[in-house]
């Protein structure tokens, strides 16, 4: 397929723009490998001088076949795959997948496990927004904030390593609860982080959020009105920056989110500046949730005691034949959910995330469809960029926050 086959990518014809003059639009390929730090996104851009008249994202350069691979792994094994999609907010995918399977199995996750899940999910959301800020500003040419945000991110990655054993791409959630309990050093580490981080946010705000150059660079760039955003299927912070206060943690609470007290920041302007600033506000709200989740944590089990889902405790294996059989079945085969199809919508750092799982009663999912936010959000690049300058395209990509692992699945 050559670029000519793409046809006319713009929404404006040459005749409309230039009347009877003989002009051509220039077609530029912003190839999969490019200086912007947003991964392998390829854009075919039609330019009239510096102004964009057409833009088409060509994706698939990171297509990994997650959904097909998950059809060949048991339900517990799929947890290792889900966080590799959106690798910056891996816990969101893990949580969405695990919630879907638990809904299918009618599993009852204990309170402590839910609170740990929520705390880690929100800490991961903060880490994801830190990368958003760092790389977004790096794309605009500001090198310093990258080092500042990465410094905070290292604190969070240390916490994750302490709990899960690995900095990124965790395999910590299980269907029915968690892999193991958090170590005691988790709580002082989280306390330290929650004490120091607000001062860092103030530092970021002073560094760039109130900086004239930054504001003028982003104000009224890539404006997405409320109707446009809804029509193009945008969700997540980018939608909230266009005036729609939709947050699935409030609208369809899961995993205990209805018990936490937090606000949903909403901006009305819908431009790139709002999309950047809203994530700073979201980091503050996430901190509140983490504080509440950690404070309300009671000692208790961290896995659903149902033997059909979770392994029996080791001590029981010496006495009970049933325990040995359950253990054997779970380890060799995995559990069998009943036949049916479920979907649970959750809120990741990028938008609505949900796993539609079709179960045929076997130990492996029959079909897993991941409703990924970045793929749908990326379509909004078209209305945001058309009519704007070519240089603003990078800013628009950065502010919509696509993750190519999420886009290409």
């Amino acid at each position, binding site marked *: 397929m050559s670029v000519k086959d793409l046809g006319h990518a713009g929404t404006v014809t040459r005749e409309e723009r230039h009347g009877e003059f003989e002009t051509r639009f220039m077609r530029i390929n912003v190839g999969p490998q490019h200086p912007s730090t947003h991964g392998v996104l390829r854009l075919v851009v039609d330019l009239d001088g510096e102004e964009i008249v057409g833009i088409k994202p060509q994706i698939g350069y990171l297509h*990994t*076949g997650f959904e097909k691979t998950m059809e060949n792994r048991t339900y517990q094994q799929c947890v290792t795959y889900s966080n590799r999609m959106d690798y910056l907010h891996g816990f969101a995918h893990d949580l969405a997948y695990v919630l879907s399977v638990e809904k299918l199995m009618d599993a009852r996750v204990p309170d402590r496990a839910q609170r740990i899940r929520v705390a880690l999910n929100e800490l991961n959301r903060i880490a994801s927004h830190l990368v958003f800020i760092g790389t977004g500003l790096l794309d605009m040419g500001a090198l310093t904030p990258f080092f500042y945000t*990465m410094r905070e991110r290292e604190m969070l990655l240390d916490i994750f390593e302490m709990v899960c054993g690995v900095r990124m791409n965790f395999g910590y959630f299980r269907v029915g609860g968690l892999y193991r309990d958090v170590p005691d050093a988790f709580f002082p580490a989280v306390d330290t982080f929650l004490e120091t981080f607000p001062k860092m946010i103030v530092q970021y705000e002073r560094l760039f959020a109130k900086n004239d150059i930054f504001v003028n660079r982003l104000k009224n760039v890539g404006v997405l009105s409320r109707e446009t955003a809804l029509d193009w299927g945008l969700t997540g912070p980018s939608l909230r920056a266009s005036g729609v206060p939709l947050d699935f943690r409030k609208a369809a609470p899961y995993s205990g989110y209805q018990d936490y007290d937090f606000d949903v920041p909403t901006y009305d302007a819908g431009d790139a500046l709002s999309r950047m600033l809203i994530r700073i506000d979201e980091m503050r709200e996430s901190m509140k949730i983490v504080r509440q989740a950690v404070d309300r944590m009671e000692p208790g089990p961290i896995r659903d005691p149902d033997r059909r889902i979770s392994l029996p405790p080791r001590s029981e294996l010496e006495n009970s034949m049933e325990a040995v059989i359950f253990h054997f079945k779970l380890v060799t085969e995995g559990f069998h959910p009943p036949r049916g199809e479920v979907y649970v919508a959750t809120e990741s750092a990028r938008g609505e995330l949900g796993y539609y799982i079709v179960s045929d009663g076997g130990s492996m999912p029959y079909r897993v469809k991941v409703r990924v936010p970045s793929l749908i959000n990326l379509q909004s690049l078209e209305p945001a960029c058309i009519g704007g300058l070519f240089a603003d395209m990078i800013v628009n990509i950065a502010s919509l926050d696509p993750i190519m692992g999420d886009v290409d699945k």
Partner: protein
Amino acid sequence: MGLRDLFEKDVQELENDGILFSSLEKLVAWGRSNSLWPATFGLACCAIEMMQSTNARNDLSRFGSEVFRASPRQADVMIVAGRLSKKMAPIMRRVYEQMPDPKWVISMGACASSGGMFNNYAIVQNVDSVVPVDIFVPGCPPRPESLVFAVMQLQKKVRGDAFDQHGVELPMVEGWSR
């Protein structure tokens, strides 16, 4: 890596008389190894760890990788960080061919080195089948310290201090032909 290691018996000469004899190849290899500029080829999760290796805690630029050049024409080493899909493979080959000689490739992570946890229709099972790889880094994702160690191993390979898996000494990268 200091001057002392490279030019052992000449250091005394340098300290006493202020002059130093060496072969041009050694000097060029020393210079090259200490200024390997990577081309940005971050694909997936390993790219995030690659970015973390350039931050203030694990500083890759103290090993010479001062900047990540966006243009392959200005880069020495291509760090393939992440899973390579079959759609991306021809583009990676093109980027590799656009890099001027001498060039090296570090295959970072399990997915680039062997397909990792993905063995399916979409992922290239070993990046070595597309570009010649010098250093493989295991991990999913490898810690930034692992990547730094890989860069150090590449430095040794460039200088001629490296051994392959059978214990055979690898030759120093020739100055003019590679």
